[in-house]
């Protein structure tokens, strides 16, 4: 599993399989896969699409990192969705209400968002360590509750402002904006895309170069073994969930501070679920996740281009779904394959005859 081949082969297989599946689907539905592919690739050079892909990828990257932190501790934080949306709306309300100097204002909003995300993730974390409530159940429920709280907060008799038929929070003053990198006709790169990169680096350092990261991964692999080794597994659950929530809180920040400056009723949802898929695709590795985020963003933007040339854009959803499904299958297959190869190697070293246990284990 540790080999580079073992790491890279499954996603490549998965993407190839998904592409094959989509080709067949397109052929059955009577569309031309060639022109569809041409439209998808061609769009990247057109207008602002390339920059849009990077911008969206930075958002997806943060969401996937939030999920990945939980995965490292063997926690399935489905609540990233609720955590990021609640953080976004609270940060937008707070940011729209305060007046602070340029820079400080934006930093304050970002800190608020991270804290809200962490605080909302604290609920399932505390339930888990004190009452052993499974985080999948509690975070799913909390997602629904977050949607309710958001709807309440953006009511026009609460913090909402009517904008025609839309509702938004009060607009954040320009001191709270994070300027982007203007790239002329190619659009504007979100300033906070760099925050995503920084968080990615921080994640790598934390997991691979600190004692905490080691303890976290150890506790994730086997809580009992880690406890025997002197690691407080409950503390690890709590801290990793709070970290996950904190990063989740940042998810909406690039769009909020870089483009929208307000939380709208029509603000996009679903980044948390996208993050789960990308974390799976990237195998919790910061570089893998970055690749997954870019791929996902590219596919998302392709929908528009495909719609434009008359190819059903739902093909993108099929592609994304089949990538996730096949990546999971591919990892299992490759892992089993490698396990058998290793057992064979060990068997050969031990002297000729394959151990019966390895054969039984591998052939099942």
């Amino acid at each position: 599993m540790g080999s580079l081949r073992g790491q890279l082969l499954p996603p490549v297989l998965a993407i190839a399989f998904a592409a094959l599946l989509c080709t067949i689907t397109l052929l059955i539905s009577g569309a031309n896969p060639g022109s569809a592919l041409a439209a998808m690739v061609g769009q990247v050079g057109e207008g602002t699409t390339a920059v849009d892909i990077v911008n969206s990828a930075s958002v997806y990257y943060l969401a996937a990192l939030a999920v990945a932190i939980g995965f490292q501790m063997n926690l399935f934080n489905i609540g990233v969705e609720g955590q990021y949306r609640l953080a976004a709306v609270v940060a937008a309300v707070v940011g729209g209400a305060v007046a602070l100097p340029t820079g400080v204002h934006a930093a304050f909003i970002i800190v608020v968002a991270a804290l809200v995300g962490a605080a909302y993730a604290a609920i399932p974390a505390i339930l888990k360590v004190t009452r052993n409530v499974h985080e999948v159940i509690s975070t799913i429920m909390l997602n629904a509750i977050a949607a309710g709280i958001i709807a309440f907060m953006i009511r026009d008799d609460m913090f909402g402002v009517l904008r025609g038929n839309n509702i938004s929070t009060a607009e954040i003053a320009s001191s709270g904006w994070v300027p982007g990198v203007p790239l002329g006709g190619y659009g504007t790169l979100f300033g906070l895309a760099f925050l995503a990169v920084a968080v990615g680096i921080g994640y790598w350092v934390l997991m691979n170069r600190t004692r905490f990261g080691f303890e976290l991964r150890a506790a994730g692999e086997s809580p009992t073994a880690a406890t025997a080794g002197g690691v407080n597994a409950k503390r690890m659950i709590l801290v990793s969930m709070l970290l996950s929530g904190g990063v989740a809180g940042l998810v909406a920040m690039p769009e909020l501070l870089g483009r929208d400056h307000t939380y709208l009723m029509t603000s996009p949802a679903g980044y948390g679920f996208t993050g789960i898929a990308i974390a799976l695709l990237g195998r919790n590795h910061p570089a893998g996740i970055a690749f997954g985020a870019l791929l996902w963003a590219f596919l998302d933007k392709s929908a528009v281009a495909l719609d434009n040339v008359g190819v059903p854009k739902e093909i993108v959803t099929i592609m994304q779904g089949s990538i996730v499904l096949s990546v999971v299958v591919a990892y299992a297959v490759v892992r089993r394959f490698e396990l058998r190869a290793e057992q064979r190697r060990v068997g050969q070293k031990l002297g000729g005859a394959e151990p019966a246990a390895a054969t039984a284990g591998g052939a099942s």
Partner: protein
Amino acid sequence: MRRMRGVVLAVIALTGAMSLVACAKDAGRRGSVGGQAAACKLADKPELIPGLIATTTATGERIDGSHLRVGLAFDVGGRGDESFNDAAAAGIDRAKEELGITDVREVTASHQESEDVKQSRLRQLAQDGFNPIIAVGFSYADSLEAVAPEFPNVRFALVDATVEGAPNVTPLLFSEEQGSFLVGVAAAYKSRNCHVGFVGGVETPLIQKFEAGFLQGAKAAAPDIRVDVKYLTSAGDFSGFNDPEKATHSTRGLLDRGADVIYQAAGGSGKGVFAAVDDADGAMAIGVDSDQYKQKNLAAYRDVIITSMLKRVDVGVVDFLRAVAKNDLSAMPDVLNLKENGVDYATSGGKLDDIEDVLEAYKSQIIAGNIEVRDRPGA
């Protein structure tokens, strides 16, 4: 052994009796529609003010729009949603016939997509040379604010919203509350229990306009009427526009409480409302946006659809295209009201024939300004 058989018999008898009771209860519940309560005491019908209601929409003069390349960006659901988007699609289809337009590209939004995706969609239409471009749905407002200034020579129209400071964007606004008022009156007249219901897709300001008008219309016709309101999802969660299953359950809840005329403004969830109404004895439904009695995919429920509140997006679209073809947008109204035929009620199926005079009377009163319809519930 004998005793055993006795026990078995007793058990069978008991379960039989219990299921009979359950059946009876069930029948009672379903039968309650039209049973226990009486019809409304109706308010006096207003006078018909003659000469206000336009009978024909035809403008007479023949306009050639064959040179136009029309881009149409639908909201989520797109062509085939049987409702809002289909009303816009109907407009395009009519424009093809009446104005000779041939080159139309239709693109559709995805569920809760990001802002830049909306912008790319509009931008790509403009870059590919489409002009005019019609954006369906208020969620395009911010995107148009960004994109329209980039293409000052392209004419845009935006359904359901205005864009400040963009002279090349023509808003197509409708007074949904006025049309809803009329179907509210119809509901009050048709209800046997003096109890009606409203099912909204998502609790947004736009859908609240439908609710407000319906409420006011029903109360105007029958001051004692009970109106129950149910939204499928709250603001920010747009799944309510595409969840027929949920709509069926919610509607059943309203019917069980005794409502017998249900008005839905729920987009793609609407067929779930019709399904629930169709299931209940004697209940009736009111459609929305398009004339849903005539929709092919809803044909199974047409018996219960007594009318539909027509939001004539098609009229708006055709008027706009006509104006663009003439290169004169000055005649476009700010808001398409009852007066402009921007909203209306459908009469297909003939289930309102007996009260059409009443509805026309209320209509004329609204057009004359004697009845002012609120656009927010409870305000």
